[in-house]
């Protein structure tokens, strides 16, 4: 199935529409960053359902927003060496290949099929939010590794240096390729796939895993965003307000996250994702 070009009126952007997209982006960035999912997973379906933005253009805007947020958030974590740069680079060999495959596939999927896939992914994320185990309070005592990808960082909350050994790299590469494909196909970051994989399979402490995942997201999104740009799907009228709004929202979310009650937020976001999934499924069913 070959994707059809969207009607231009759906991309036109006056002041009101700019404000509406920026507002949705800010809300998505705020909520997404507070629960660690990123903003794209709300931003893309909300723009599609509320404003009629064609899903391929919404996905392209989501990728732009993901890159902005990842680059801003990663800067501090990389400087403070919480991010495992070498592990991130190694896994990026798989995420970028997956992202190119996902971004290429998206061009050949029509809007209805892409919306249906997105609806399923929204439901999976809602279930993940409700069922995921709480992260451990303390980092595991993994011992100092001397391997190329092993890491260490200073944890201010524990008041000590945390060292860890990275294990099962082949599994990590395989799962990273899947996360990259999902990112390229749906325009989201893929953190809900990579973070549990790094903590549960590769022995990386949660703080380092979250920071390394965020670090990788920008390059992964870059790989597929270039494809979308060359195809003319990165519309400034959609991508600019979405990226600006999501960036401001994510910044505010990072400041508020420590004060918010995580469990309540996760249930709220799970409910929002479920509603969006049902609405997307209905829009596919009705042929909208």
């Amino acid at each position, binding site marked *: 199935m070959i994707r059809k070009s969207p009607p231009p009126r759906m991309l036109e952007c006056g002041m009101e529409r700019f404000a509406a997209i920026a507002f949705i982006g800010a809300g998505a960035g705020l909520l997404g960053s507070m629960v660690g999912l990123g903003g794209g997973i709300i931003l893309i379906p909300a723009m599609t359902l509320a404003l009629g933005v064609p899903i391929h253009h919404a996905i392209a805007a989501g990728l732009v927003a993901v890159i902005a947020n990842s680059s*801003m958030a990663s800067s501090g974590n990389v400087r403070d060496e919480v991010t495992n740069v070498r592990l991130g680079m190694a896994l990026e060999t798989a995420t970028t290949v997956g992202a190119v495959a996902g971004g290429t596939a998206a061009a050949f999927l029509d809007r209805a099929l892409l919306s249906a896939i997105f609806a399923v992914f929204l439901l999976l994320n809602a279930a993940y939010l409700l069922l995921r185990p709480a992260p451990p309070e303390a980092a595991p005592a993994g011992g100092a590794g001397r391997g190329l990808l092993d890491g260490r960082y200073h944890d201010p909350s524990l008041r000590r240096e945390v060292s860890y050994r990275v294990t099962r790299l082949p599994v990590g590469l395989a799962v990273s390729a899947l996360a990259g494909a999902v990112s390229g196909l749906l325009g989201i970051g893929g953190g809900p796939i990579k973070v549990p994989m790094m903590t549960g399979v590769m022995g990386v402490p949660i703080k380092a895993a979250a920071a390394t995942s965020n670090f990788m997201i920008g390059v992964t999104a870059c790989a597929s965003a270039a494809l979308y740009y060359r195809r003319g799907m990165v519309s*400034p009228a959609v991508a*600019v307000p979405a990226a600006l709004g999501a960036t401001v929202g994510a910044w505010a979310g990072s400041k508020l996250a420590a004060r918010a009650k995580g469990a309540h937020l996760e249930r709220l976001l799970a409910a929002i994702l479920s509603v969006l999934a049902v609405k997307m499924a209905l829009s596919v069913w009705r042929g909208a």
Partner: protein
Amino acid sequence: MTRPRDPASVAVAAALKGGVTLALGLLAAGLAAAALRGQPLPTEAVELGRVLPLALAGDAAGLLSLGLLALLATPAVRVTVLAYQFARAREWRMLAVTALVLAVLAFSLLSGRGEA
């Protein structure tokens, strides 16, 4: 802890921060240009070959497209910075890994002509 900072981490952090700052500045300039001329935001980004001349002429579409490209290029720049740092430190295996990622990014940029 007073462990000396890893030069690669410091350089990558600076590249990320600098790229986002540049991109946001260009986007702000593009929005201002569109507002001053009473133009709606362009629905399509400018083709790669025309971006720089239009941006230098102060055209809103050119500035916004250049801002978006600067944002999209920021992660690629940080990979390049890392490649340089790994080369300086003679970490050949990490340099090979970084070069592979750069090759995939280059392939993505050059193969993006589609059926839009």
